[in-house]
């Protein structure tokens, strides 16, 4: 009932969710039920790749919510993504137990390597899934809340906000590169074995993670769509278009921004948490400036302020990346750079805008 209500006027969303449902079911069946020798078999590698794209898509939806509807170009979302990923990575590290290279049941390998004798306090509790899951939500959420509370209250907007979110991400990257921080430094967290007792290398676990990503994406999409359709969503767009005016008709602009920004950061964190078990590693490179800006381009390519455009953009660009880096590795950065320029100069409404225009002319 609520579902129908949310998607009533959202034809793009209806199509997207239908495609997502069909793809997820088909891929799962083709992987599990069809024998490997068959042409119709979908390899586990492909499933994991698709699962990774879905987490990126969720991240892109989160970015679109704040950029497309609220006008905040956040370059901090890769940080929220990575923090969610680290929280999950810490859980997975603790699950390794004594199966590490050093066979130390109490300490992850890298700590043994650094001659540490005790688990740092901030690792406590990460051997329990519920605690890690809570941290996946809380750590990015609280960081976004504190940062947003400071920034929006003093009316830091536009490019200034972009620059300081970028600085935040950069500071976190430098911090996570330090061995002393206790997050594995340069190498990050890796060599995971299992999650909730399921072997991470098993096909069924891969499928499970893939389906979980699809569900998270669908729920994230619906939540964002609900916000966007609500009066709060209209206030957000009002803030994007005329912030002062919104303030003068009595809305606490800082509060609206703060809550939406925090929610978006939480979504990014969840995306990161689903990303890590599928790719099997999390390292400080996820905080890099390139990442934080690249994911904005996914949204730009798909089309801002549409939500499903973000999904489309994330998958299209990442498919391109997978293809290029395998086939023509030297050309990928040229292609990405050109994409940045072309989209902003020639295609400000993205692919969705292009499709809509075509529809309108027919």
């Amino acid at each position, binding site marked *: 009932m609520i579902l129908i209500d949310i998607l009533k006027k959202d034809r793009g969303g209806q199509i997207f969710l239908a495609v997502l449902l069909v793809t997820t079911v088909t891929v799962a069946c083709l992987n599990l039920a069809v024998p490997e020798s068959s042409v119709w078999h979908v390899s586990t590698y492909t499933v994991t790749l698709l699962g990774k794209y879905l987490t990126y898509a969720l991240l892109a939806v989160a970015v679109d919510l704040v950029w497309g509807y609220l006008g905040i*170009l956040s370059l901090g979302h890769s940080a929220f993504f990575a923090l969610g990923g680290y929280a999950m990575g810490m859980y997975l590290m603790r699950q390794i137990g004594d199966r590490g290279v050093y066979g130390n049941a109490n300490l992850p390998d890298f700590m043994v390597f650094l001659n540490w004798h005790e688990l740092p306090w901030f690792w406590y509790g990460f051997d329990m899934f519920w605690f890690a899951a809570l941290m996946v939500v809380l750590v990015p959420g609280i960081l976004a809340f504190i*940062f947003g509370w*400071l*920034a929006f*209250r*003093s*009316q*830091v907007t*536009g*490019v*200034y906000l*972009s*620059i*300081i979110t*970028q*600085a*935040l991400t*950069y*500071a976190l990257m*430098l*911090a996570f*590169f*330090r061995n002393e921080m206790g997050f594995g430094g340069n190498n990050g967290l890796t060599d995971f074995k299992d999650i909730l007792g399921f072997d991470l290398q098993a096909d069924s676990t891969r499928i499970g993670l893939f389906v979980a990503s699809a569900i998270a994406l669908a729920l994230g999409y619906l939540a964002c769509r609900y916000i966007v359709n609500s009066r709060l969503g209209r206030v957000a767009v009002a803030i994007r278009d005329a912030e002062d005016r919104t303030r003068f008709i009595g809305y606490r602009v800082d509060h609206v921004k703060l809550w939406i920004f925090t929610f978006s950061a939480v979504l990014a964190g969840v995306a990161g948490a689903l990303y890590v078990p599928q790719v099997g590693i999390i390292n400080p490179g996820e905080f890099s*400036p*390139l990442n934080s*800006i690249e994911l*904005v*381009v996914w949204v*730009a390519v798909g089309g801002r302020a549409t939500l499903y455009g973000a999904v489309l953009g994330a998958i299209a660009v990442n498919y391109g990346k997978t293809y290029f880096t395998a086939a023509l590795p*030297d050309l990928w*950065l*040229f292609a*990405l*750079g*050109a*994409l*940045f*320029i072309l*989209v*902003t*100069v020639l295609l*400000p409404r993205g692919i969705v805008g292009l499709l809509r225009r075509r529809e309108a002319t027919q």
Partner: protein
Amino acid sequence: MTTFLRRTGMQIPWLKLLARHHVIWCLVVSALLPLNSYAADDPAANNRLEPALKLLKTGSFKEKLHAIELLAASGDPLALNYLKPLLQARLYYRKDNGDIVIAEREGSQYQLTAPVDGTALGRVKKRSIKKITINNAMRRLLREKIAGLSLTNPDPKIREAAVNEMITSRANGLARTLKGLVDQEEDASVKALMQTGIALGVLDTGTDEEKIAAISQLSHSLNPAVRNRLEQLSADAGTSKIGKAARKALVTIEGRVAFYNHIETLFFGLSLGSVLVLAAIGLAITFGVMGVINMAHGELIMLGAYTTYLIQQMMPAYIGWSLLVAVPAAFLVSGAVGIVIERGIIRFLYGRPLETLLATFGVSLILQQIVRTVISPQNVPVLNPSWMSGSLQVNSVLSLTYNRLYIIVFSLAVFIALFLVLKKTRLGLGVRAVSQNRAMARAMGVRSGRVDAMTFGLGSGIAGVAGVALSQLTNVGPNLGQSYIIDSFMVVVFGGVGSLLGTLVAGLSLGVANKILEPSVGAVLAKILVLVFIILFIQKRPRGLFPQKGRAVEN
């Protein structure tokens, strides 16, 4: 030499004359020839040494000691050419003709050189030479005599090194030796060092009153040997008057050392700050004046650094001049690229600053990748001209390296030049007009498109110039720009967008803050703390240190 004479009671005025004579000789000759070689052309000198050299070849240590005394007494700087290798046990004589040579083992054979002028004399088997052996008594005497000879060397640097050597080795008769020389010493810094040495010597030999006077004199010295000696003294002498005086002097000295360390930190900070200012100042124009977020700014800096590299490749014989050529060349290269970016992309994005951020980031990726494919994905070597190396020694605890000094001067010069361009030229007037009110400026006949292109070119050109400076400090590679872009934005935002002075103050103060934090928390954490500080600062004062005020800014 003089010590020896004094000790043996001989007074020979011509020795002094000879010393003077050497000074003159040195002035004339050293400009043309290496120091040692002139003596080889002077047969008289070799003749004077000849009897002593003969004695060296005898087996008896007693006679060898005498030989050393004789060599030292000759007062000839050439004697050092024998004494030093002798101390290092590299002095041999040939069995066939008795010539004294320096021999160096090379594989199974020995490479011979002449002590007098260092000419190579070919390689021989071990059998055909014999080492001149030395014992501890000889070693002691050798050290003393070498120092003594060096003390009268015409070159003040050698004299200074000799005094330092004597002080650190706590040579016997230190005070006495130096007292005999200090009055004739002409070089002020050597003289001061000698006085320090004398005072140190008195600490070993003098009466209590003399010692206390010496300590109070030493409390003005920053020489590390003085500090060591005083520390030892304050430990040994305990609560006696001398111990107290030593501790008091130490406190004074440590205060001064701390002061100079602060100065050094400030200097490091200012030089880092100057780098930041250089990197950010072009951005202050494109961001502050035009409102364009140029994420490719770092890559324009990189292009400047690569221009320096290419210029050095083109004129390898004139590295000293290469930077002077590179500055205008880098300005033109980066400026031209900047103009292309502006006309090709940014022109379509005015009023949409977030989009310029994305588009120029795309440009930065492309520029990086071009450098990777065309030149090399690895770092390239950029040479430092000789005038950039070395340092300005202010005193024994404070030395300022020339490359840092030049960076500070250079960035100030660039700042002033830019300031003048904006204040005094027609382009500057146009820039300020367009930045304040585009429509009005256009109505007044300012060609805003042209002004935009020129402004962006100017900002980019300065990035190129910054690249030349950075090429002298860091590795030049495709990622050079990335590491500066965030810092540069931080400087501009911290200083206040649109304020050149703000950029200067912000850059310098962030540099100093970084260097003050560094010793206690490490470089990376210092950088993180500074970033966090700026993030918090922007929350408090969103318009930076030097905000622009008024109604026009609001919209």
